């Protein structure tokens, strides 16, 4: 048994479940819950105690997922990202995952820091940050569908889908 790919695959799945699980939690649960909580003045419990913890595991599990995925690709890393023969399926998944990682660290996290008061921001800046963070989160949710299609098929796409 080759221990490094086996371990990398295991960590890739564990961290990926946490990352995408929290992404779906934000989109399916927290966003509508905050809307309802804002209406009855109970949003502070979520924004103070839940959201910062969820974001901590969200952004770092994204990094671990990507690094474990890169380790798993090993010497096929460049072949995957350049869609070489037999690697197009996983290559598309890898590109989508990379774009999603960028969205987490460049758009979602910096704007959430403003929204949650971790960074100073005016009301106008917070309103803009809410919009950008929501759309970036929704974009990642949208990208997660093809990402998981291409990732989960992985190597078998060569045989099943001709990719």
């Amino acid at each position: 048994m080759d221990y490094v790919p086996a371990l990398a695959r295991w960590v890739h799945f564990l961290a990926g479940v946490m990352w995408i699980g929290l992404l779906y939690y934000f989109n399916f649960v927290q966003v509508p819950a905050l809307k309802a909580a804002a209406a009855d003045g109970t949003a502070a419990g979520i924004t103070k105690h839940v959201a910062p913890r969820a974001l901590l595991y969200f952004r770092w599990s994204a990094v671990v997922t990507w690094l474990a995925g890169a380790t798993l690709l090993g010497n096929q890393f460049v072949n995957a990202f350049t869609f070489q023969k037999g690697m197009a399926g996983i290559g598309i998944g890898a590109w989508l995952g990379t774009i999603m990682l960028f969205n987490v660290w460049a758009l979602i996290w910096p704007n959430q820091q403003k929204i949650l008061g971790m960074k100073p921001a005016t009301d106008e800046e917070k309103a803009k940050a809410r919009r950008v963070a929501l759309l970036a989160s929704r974009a990642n949710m949208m990208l997660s569908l093809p990402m998981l299609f291409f990732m989960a098929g992985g190597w078998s796409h060569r045989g099943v889908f001709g990719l």
Partner: protein
Amino acid sequence: MKNPLESIWGTIICGLILTAILYWAAQALLH
């Protein structure tokens, strides 16, 4: 026109359409 990413179902439908587009694009490019 409303941005489809405003709603959760709009987001899911966009994701499904994107999956189909990428699948067919990949097949067209590779064969």
